[in-house]
């Protein structure tokens, strides 16, 4: 079953007199439990595609179905609720809230889902345990390394058991050793059945995904199925 169905996605940025076509009639499907990497050169439209699929942005035209729900036409609040209940995000620069500890960063979306504090706290600790950072639960982001912050970001993305985790170049700011550890975390999640859509410009990391979607100039130019996963 496909958990993501995108059809003829187009995204045009209006910059003064010039219209920039970041996506041009992109269509793709992603199956539940699949690990997909989106790659391409800088400016190829890979991050733009991720933002449309992850409901962080509105496409200029086309449609996106997430878990069977047509998202075009949803209100801003409905999209927020969908992001909360169905999706998880890992951003390139971790995007943790600096005034919250690692545990609290993970707690917030759980509390927003309506979990009582005790239940939310346990889920957050479980998520931290999964990324092997429970001992840093009470640390603020500024007290952690980049790799640790990214693992907290992953824990936040998975704590509420989303159907899809989107990752936007999660290893871009990390050294190779830490990057490999982050990738291993994603592979672990995938092994447990998590659907993952990851943007990366590293061919080596893309090769770890089941499927690699290669983009150039706003269109999908190639799709590679990897055997290693």
């Amino acid at each position: 079953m496909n958990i993501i169905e995108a059809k003829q996605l187009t995204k045009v940025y209006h910059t003064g007199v010039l219209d920039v076509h970041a996506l041009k009639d992109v269509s793709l499907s992603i199956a539940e439990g699949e690990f997909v990497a989106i790659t391409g050169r800088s400016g190829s439209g890979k991050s733009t595609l991720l933002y449309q699929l992850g409901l962080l942005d509105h496409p200029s035209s086309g449609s996106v179905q997430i878990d069977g729900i047509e998202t075009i036409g949803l209100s801003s609040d409905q999209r927020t609720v969908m992001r909360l209940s169905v999706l998880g995000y890992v951003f390139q620069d971790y995007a943790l809230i600096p005034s919250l500890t690692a545990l609290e960063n993970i707690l917030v979306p759980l509390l927003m889902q309506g979990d009582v504090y005790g239940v939310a706290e346990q889920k957050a600790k479980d998520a931290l345990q999964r990324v092997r950072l429970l001992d840093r639960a009470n640390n603020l982001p500024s007290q952690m390394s980049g790799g640790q912050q990214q693992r907290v970001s992953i824990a936040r993305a998975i704590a509420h058991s989303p159907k899809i985790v989107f990752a936007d170049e999660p290893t871009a700011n990390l050294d190779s050793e830490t990057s490999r550890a982050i990738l291993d975390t994603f592979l672990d999640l995938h092994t447990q059945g998590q659907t993952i859509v990851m943007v990366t410009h590293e061919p080596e990391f893309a090769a770890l995904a089941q499927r690699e979607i290669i983009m150039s100039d706003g269109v999908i130019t190639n799709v590679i199925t990897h055997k290693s996963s």
Partner: protein
Amino acid sequence: MSSQKVQSQPSFFTSLSVGWFLATRDLARASRWTTLLIISVMTLTFLNLVVVSGILVGLIQGSVDANKRQYTSDIFITEPLSKVYIEDSRLLASTARATEGVIGVTERYLSSAKIEANYKRQVQADETRDTANASVAGISPVDEDIVTGLSSEIAEGEYLEPGETGSILMGADLLYKYNQITSPDIQVLDEVTIGDTVRVTIGDTVNEFVVKGILDSKLSEIDLRIFMNEGELRQLINRRATNADEIAIMVEPGTDLVPILDTLRSLSGPDGALVRTAEEAQPKFLQDITATFAILGNAIGSIGLAVASITIFIVIFVNAITRRRFIGILKGIGITSTAIQWSYMFQSLFYAGAGIAIGMCLVFGVLKPFFAEHPIDFPFSDGILVATMGGTLLRAGLLLIATVIAGFLPAKIVVRQNTLDAILGR
């Protein structure tokens, strides 16, 4: 597929509790100096709201209080407009004295007088005599002191003794030394000191009196009068003891005035003496000024409230703008706009609440007692700080409401921005 499958919005309580969670963490981990600065601004804003209008009203309240304390006391009885004195004032006074809760009663006999100083000096043809017109009040020094504390207004010399004759107390505004007016319409005595003899003309009677003391208050009913023992004045104006012009009655604090007023009014009859409370007996100009200053106080208060709202708006807006990216991230991970807005409203409520709490402590613990002990020396009153608990709480409530709105609006403006743009800092 339809959007009906989308999960329902988080409940109001959930948004509220997440807003609280975010706000408490933000506040707990914010820079202490920044927090202190914002609370200081809020404290000053609250003080601006309460103290400026409080002082303004306090200027007049000082006069009102002085008028009551030094002149009318709690109940004030005067002759009706159609009569020159109170009929059977002794009955009213003795009834008042016998009434429970009454601390003191003073009867005053009044007449107009012309006072002349330095009258033994030869006056040249181009010189004017050192004269002034005044109202003369005959009092019982003991009763008057109990009710109005007149002896405490002595600026020079001594207070009158009971039964003392040939001595007067002189109001300071009758003397050039205290009242340096050069208008040809207003006469003051040029050179009078304690122990000087002045000539007092009452009707056709001329007598000499020694100036025993000078009274300096900020009340014209004291400062433009001369005082002597009531027996002596009654003799001069040929007035019986039962026909005083004014009666001031002091009662214990908290005493219900209504039964006392009813008793005295029934005694005086419908066409008899005017029996009024201090408030009713306030001079019309004081009532008018009080009303005008109250309007001014409210106007200044409204401006203060607007300034406070703008201040909070700016503080929260700057706070929200600098955290625009984090607001975007919160929205990105599914935190609703309502929860984020609550977070900022809680923070602004905290800043305003802390500012108000400190401001209240300063107003009631420091400023009000200070101004009560050290009134502001205005020409016409001793200015105090008028800040009732009810009025201050009302202003605090208005400030909190303004705070909620002023905290909500900037948060809403920032929250409404495109989520992705906020995350990417575009």
